[in-house]
């Protein structure tokens, strides 16, 4: 029972679960996607990325790259949201919402890969 490993696994899985929670729902309905949840997803993904730093193995490199992909997509989603509502003044619309949700869907795929890799690593250790 290694507390460091518990935290590592916790944040990786949490990033996937929160991401799924944000993603699920009608793609263009702003009522189904809460901005607080997107905020939580971004923060937890950042924490998971930093926890993955400094691992020299091949597995560690791939884990870090999936996290970086997820961060990229989530920050793009946040940027789209912020620009639509504040910068351009157009406000929220179904098109903007679907862009945001599709970007977060991409990030979710990266998080799925991350979790799968974590599971594989754990199973390999048990052998």
């Amino acid at each position: 029972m290694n507390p460091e490993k518990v935290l590592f696994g916790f944040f990786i899985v949490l990033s996937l679960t929160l991401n799924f929670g944000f993603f699920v729902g009608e793609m263009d309905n702003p009522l189904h996607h809460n901005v607080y949840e997107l905020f939580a997803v971004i923060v937890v993904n950042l924490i998971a990325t930093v926890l993955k730093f400094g691992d020299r193995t091949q597995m560690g490199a791939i884990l870090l790259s999936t996290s970086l992909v997820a961060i990229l997509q989530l920050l793009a989603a946040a940027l789209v949201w912020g620009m639509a509502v504040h910068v351009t003044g157009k406000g929220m619309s179904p098109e903007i919402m679907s862009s945001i949700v599709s970007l977060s869907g991409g990030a979710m795929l990266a998080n799925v890969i991350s979790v799968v890799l974590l599971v594989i690593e754990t199973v390999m250790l048990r052998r």
Partner: protein
Amino acid sequence: MQNIFFIIFRRMRAPLLALILAYATAVLGMVLVPGQDAQGNPWHMDFFHAFYFISFMASTIGFGEIPYEFSDAQRLWVTFMIFTTVVVWIYAIGTLIALLQEPTFKQALVERRFARRIRQMRDHFYLVCGYGEAGRALIQSLTERNQHAVVIDKDQESIGLIRLENLRQFVPAMSADASLPLHLLEAGLKHPFCDGVVALTNSNEVNLKIAICAKLLHPDMRVVCRADSRDVEANMASIGTDYIIDPFETFAIHLATALHSPCVNLLQEWLSKVQREPLNDPVYPPRDGRWLLCGFGRFGKAVYERLTD
């Protein structure tokens, strides 16, 4: 290259986590704490403005309370967050600066730059390990004849001295332990243009190790080693070292030649002197009589053997 990034990432993990948590808490707090708009109606900040405000607060720029004046609840939260975020930033930047000052990190940078310089060498060169008296003379002679060389020495000051010397060719030098194969590889042991390795350190064991590494990693390269113990010399010869130089033997041979055949010695000195030095005059020692040898260590034994031949 990977080494450098690995060190940076590992060290910056804790500061980065602290930074992310501080920012996240601050932004969330700014969004949740109720404020009021210009008319006094309750109003909540959105994430965009919260992040903007926290950014210029944490970097101590402090533009002002945007877009409306803050309520007292917001000001209370901001007070706590000022101390948190500014301290976390100082911690992160301080860790990064301390990391960049660290000797191991700087050594890693120096080694990387040196190895890259060696990889880009396009001329044939000799790898000289050890920059003592012999090493210095060798580098001087090599560069005068427009040959290229690479030097590694354990002592940082010796490597500093090489930069002060007025050499005809640029000699890349690094302070590293030559007994580690990694450093030899960085200095170009397996480089296709490395014509030979000269082991001139003052330790027999290190010279032996250099000879072994060279013969294993670059088999068809010339290896010249210095040794002053018979066992180590036998060991070096057994692995196929091309030239083994025993300083005691060498000097004993010179001394014997000078005593028995001074003209041969004179000719040899004239032919092998450093360029542009004046030729020396012959010396004629007495031919008959006994020589009294005081001291019978390694040097004494070598002289005795040569003189009684």
